């Protein structure tokens, strides 16, 4: 109660502070941002732009003149390293400097910037502007700026090209069957990968820039007519509300737009694979692609998405359904196994079969610590080993695994510090926790939470924890969609893709809570079958 009041008052204080700050900032911003426009003189314009970005080592300013009769002076400004020199040489400089001379006297006057744009430049994307801020921004994202004397506008020629990682197999989501390509750090490559999967005019990719200093391009991809328009509007509203200075990875965006920032469960999904992003878009979700990050966010997210995997849909349904259940089981083991062990050995010994109880008692004999301390200790040791394994350079990794497996596992048991059954339980938990990668982080926290509850309240504590977990999950929403659907609220037809995976021809509708805008995915009667005898005979 008190906590609630304190939270409320803090929130109110923050609100009033924010309002004050906004009032202070707004007029000053208006003063600074009065757009400085270009003038007629090339020299002043150059000085203006040099004043903004001129003292950088990678800025190239190339001054030249063209049009033999009148000697129009001009200059190109670009960043070396972010631009393609062949385009600049072949498609901008060459036409302007040589081909303008070759042409006869009847050639058009080239001091008109519109004439240059329409007749001389052989580059696809060319736009013009007089606004200094806009020009500098586009230069910084790889455009080449063409300034011509006696023109109060500049041309921004798209020449962006820089070194980037090639498309290769994602490290985090490896599949047995299915496409191997993964998103890269290059936004354009990523949107291309998506478009190559969905060749449909309704696939809309909208772009906005977030981050006052980094000006990161963020794209929202969705299928018009399939995604809920209210969802798209809400996404845009939340993205536009991000007034931060930098966006370096899609994780930044995730933390700014998620529904439940205090929950241990993430309500925004991410993927590194174009095929799974495309599948989610085709179910009516929206994807957010961030420049500089191979991780694409998809929203809304359901809990069951963590247990789905893209090659589930490429293999035949029986084994996949079995593996799905194994995944749920593995997640349950990863959060409950140590807690159950602690509860059984501390409080409910009568539930263990007698023969097993004897062998366990023999193994535990002489172990100095209570089960709770053992479980917590081993849990922490495991997390340390895991974190070390992630961060360490490759060659040292082997040393860590030897230390972890032999010294900590084997020797601790022989020295009598830890019972052998506890080592087995923790090892099982550790392996199981990697089965569902999307929920590894929530699982790690829940495991500790349940071990503590079991240590103090036994089986009843585990039940209380489970009920609490379910209350929390049932109250979560991701962009308006209940997080536990299709289980709660129950949607029987959507259970076809939850604990089991129905055959593809039987998945006629999209998930009701996400794709309700256009529910029908495919026709009925797609089940393959051999031709009827009558048909073959008539032939």
């Amino acid at each position, binding site marked *: 109660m008190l906590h609630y009041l304190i939270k409320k008052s803090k929130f109110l204080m923050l609100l009033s502070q924010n309002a004050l700050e906004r009032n202070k900032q707004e007029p000053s911003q208006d003063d600074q941002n009065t757009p400085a426009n270009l003038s007629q003189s090339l020299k002043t314009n150059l000085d203006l732009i040099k004043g903004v970005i001129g003292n950088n080592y990678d800025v190239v300013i190339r001054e030249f003149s063209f049009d033999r009769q009148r000697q129009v002076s001009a200059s190109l400004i670009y960043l070396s390293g972010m631009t393609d020199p062949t385009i600049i040489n072949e498609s901008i400089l060459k036409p302007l400097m040589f081909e303008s001379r070759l042409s006869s006297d009847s050639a058009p006057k080239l001091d008109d910037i519109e004439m240059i744009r329409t007749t001389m430049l052989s580059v696809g994307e060319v736009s013009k502007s007089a606004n200094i801020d806009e020009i500098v921004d586009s230069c910084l994202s790889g455009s080449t700026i063409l300034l011509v004397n006696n023109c109060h506008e500049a041309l921004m020629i798209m020449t962006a090209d820089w070194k980037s990682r090639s498309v290769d197999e994602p490290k985090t989501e490896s599949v047995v069957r299915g496409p191997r390509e993964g998103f890269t750090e290059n936004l354009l490559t990523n949107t291309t990968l998506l478009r190559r999967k969905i060749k449909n005019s309704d696939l809309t990719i909208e772009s906005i820039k977030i981050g006052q200093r980094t000006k990161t391009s963020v794209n929202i991809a969705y299928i018009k007519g399939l995604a809920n328009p209210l969802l798209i509007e809400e996404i845009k509203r939340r993205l536009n509300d991000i007034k931060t200075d930098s966006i370096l990875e899609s994780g930044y965006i995730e933390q700014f737009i998620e529904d439940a920032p205090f929950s241990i469960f993430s309500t925004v999904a991410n993927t590194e694979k174009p095929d799974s992003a495309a599948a989610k878009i085709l179910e009516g979700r929206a994807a957010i692609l961030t420049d500089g990050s191979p991780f694409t966010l998809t929203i809304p997210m359901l809990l069951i998405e963590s247990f789905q995997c893209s090659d589930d849909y490429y293999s035949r349904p029986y084994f996949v359904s079995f593996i799905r259940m194994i995944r749920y089981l593995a997640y349950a083991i990863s959060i409950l196994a140590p807690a159950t062990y602690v509860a059984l050995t501390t409080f409910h010994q009568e539930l263990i079969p007698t023969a097993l109880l004897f062998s366990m008692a023999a193994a535990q004999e002489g172990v100095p610590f209570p089960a709770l301390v053992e479980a917590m200790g081993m849990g922490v040791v495991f997390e340390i080993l895991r974190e070390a394994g992630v961060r360490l350079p490759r060659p040292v990794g082997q040393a860590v695994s030897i230390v972890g497996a032999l010294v900590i596992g084997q020797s601790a048991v022989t020295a009598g510090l830890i019972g052998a059954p506890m080592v087995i339980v923790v090892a099982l938990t550790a392996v199981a926790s990697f089965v569902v990668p999307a929920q590894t982080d929530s699982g790690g926290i829940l495991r500790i939470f349940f071990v503590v509850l079991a240590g103090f309240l036994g*089986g*009843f504590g585990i039940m*209380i924890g489970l009920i609490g977990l379910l*209350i929390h999950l*049932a109250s979560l929403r991701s962009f308006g969609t*209940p997080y536990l659907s299709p289980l709660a*609220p*129950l949607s029987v037809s959507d259970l076809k893709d939850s604990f089991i995976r129905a055959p593809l021809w039987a998945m006629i509708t999209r998930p009701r809570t996400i794709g309700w805008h256009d529910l029908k995915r495919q026709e009925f009667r797609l089940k393959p079958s051999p031709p009827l005898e009558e048909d073959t005979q008539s032939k």
Partner: protein
Amino acid sequence: MRLERGEISSSQLMFLISCFIQGGLYPSSLAYSISKHDTWLALIAAFIIGVFIVLIYIALANKFPGKNIIEINDLIYGPYFGKLVSLQYIYFFIISLSGYFWFIGDFVLTFIMPETPIIVIMTMFAFICAWAVRKGIEVIARLCVIFVFLPGIIILLTFALLLKNMEFTNFLPVFEVPLEDFIQSTNIIMHISVCEVLAFLMVIPYMNKPKQARRSVLLGIIGGGLILLTGTIRNIAALGPLSEIVTSPSLLAVSLINIGKIISRLEVLVSMAQILLLFIITSVFYYAAVLSVAQITKLQSYLPVVIPIGIIGIFLSLISYDSRMQFSYSTMYITPLLSMHIYIAIPLISLIVAKLRKLPQRNERN
């Protein structure tokens, strides 16, 4: 001004009531000692009478769609006398809440954690219920969908596994107990399971399709009642005369299951299911109590009274009951009679008065 912003669907209400009724399996074991092996008949009788009483509640709720019982009382009896009637309901909700708090404490103390102080168990449980209540009826209803299948499947499964141990001669002779004992047992079961649907008069107004309330309530009662009947028949058939003596026939009956030393100790599952169901029942009573208190005091939101009502419930149960014997005695001989006027007389009188005053029509004109 609506205190509850969430909405529940008709199927969610059905599952909620089904959970609610199924949860009566463990408390209804108190009736075994009175009506002996005829308890299953008492159960059927209780459900038949109970359905008629529940129809009164639904008629009352349908007369004033979108209004909870506290508002309905104000409309029927006027603002002052109506409050007096509403206080009776609040008393009933809080007494039931404290009863269930004691019950869960006692259950856990007896079967799971014998050495833990009861107040720790009750506080943990009340904390979880308070959390659910704070999240609103929508979340409780969603949880029901997950919870309702587990206990049902467990009861059907244990019934099938216990067929080996069942002796149907245990039911003979039928109607052996004296009629007054049979009526008393019927009343106890009615009080424990069916008539507690009264608490749903605080929930039904928040349905998205109020017209389907009758259908989903009745389906829920029938579904839950059938499971309850299966459980009762299982206990009597498997245990025989033993079921009249033991504290928990369900747990004892299930602990008899031992198939090839592989499937055994299923009582863990039963007590898990029992905790889940008790959680649903307690949360609904908690919710009804909190919402009615907030309604009668005209609060903007019911959140501020959640914790105080929980504390009152815990201390009321600690004051009211000293031991299991006392709790059993009062549940068997006192509360069923004491609260009879709340769950039969007052709703019936309310319905008659509303009919006589032709209230819903005047409500429409307003």
